[in-house]
């Protein structure tokens, strides 16, 4: 799903060395977290 890809891309970016003071983008406001499981 789109959400997972976005997270994966962000994670990969995080592996790239960042300049000092870099602030990762905030998580998307929605949809929210899954509390149990996704069907």
């Amino acid at each position, binding site marked *: 799903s789109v959400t997972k890809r976005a997270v994966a891309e962000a994670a990969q970016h995080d592996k790239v060395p960042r300049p000092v003071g870099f602030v990762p983008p905030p*998580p998307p*406001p*929605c*949809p*929210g*977290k*899954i*509390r*149990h*499981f*996704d*069907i």
Partner: protein
Amino acid sequence: VPAAPPAPLGCDDPESEAAAEVAVNYINGHSHHGYKFALNRIEDIRVVPQGPNNDIIFLELDLLETRCPVLSPTPLANCTVRSFAEHAVEGDCDVKLQKLDGTLSVLASKCHSHADSNEDVVRVCPDCPLLVSLNNTEVLETVSAALNDYNSKTTGPYLRLLEIGRARIQYYPSHTVAVEFVVGATNCTAEEAKADVGACQLLPEDQSNFGFCTASMVKGPSQSLREDCQLYGHQVPTPPGVTYIHPGQDTS
């Protein structure tokens, strides 16, 4: 320079979760069939200001069915969400709330519930029992046999079937029908019912004894039947002045 609009509310913000909690409690409190649902995910939230301290909030919620029937006195926090292997049922709800002077109230709600697909369950658990239709012949036989068996042994009131809540059939390692159903106590004892079951009436709602039964019947050469019924002892009163979701709309 006009002030920048406030940042949109995130789905996991405390304010969103508070609104979702009010919505889920409303949905469970106004549903009279099936089971209580618990929040699984806040899909979306939109806040439309109406004026000072007055907002309309639109929520899209993903819920999951719990093991507690809606008539159960058990608090939602103590109700276990049905696991994936139990053939989970999901609820999709759109809820409209008003937040007036900090107080949240539900204006309208609309829910659709659907079971996970058989393919999904079988892929993860090939031999797990699967949900079947509530008017499946084997299901009706099992409910009838279980209730008759219970009434033949009970020293309490004669119980009458109110609603079949859930039914699953497993074929391996043995052909097993598992059912869950809601019962109501009548004004007869089991002995009196044997004499004239037609005279047994459900107790008036204000003193009704609702109960919940689980039963399973193993078919085949070594047929066996097991049932367990729990009476609640009180009923969830219908809140005065509350209008329900119009008949015909999916609520369960």
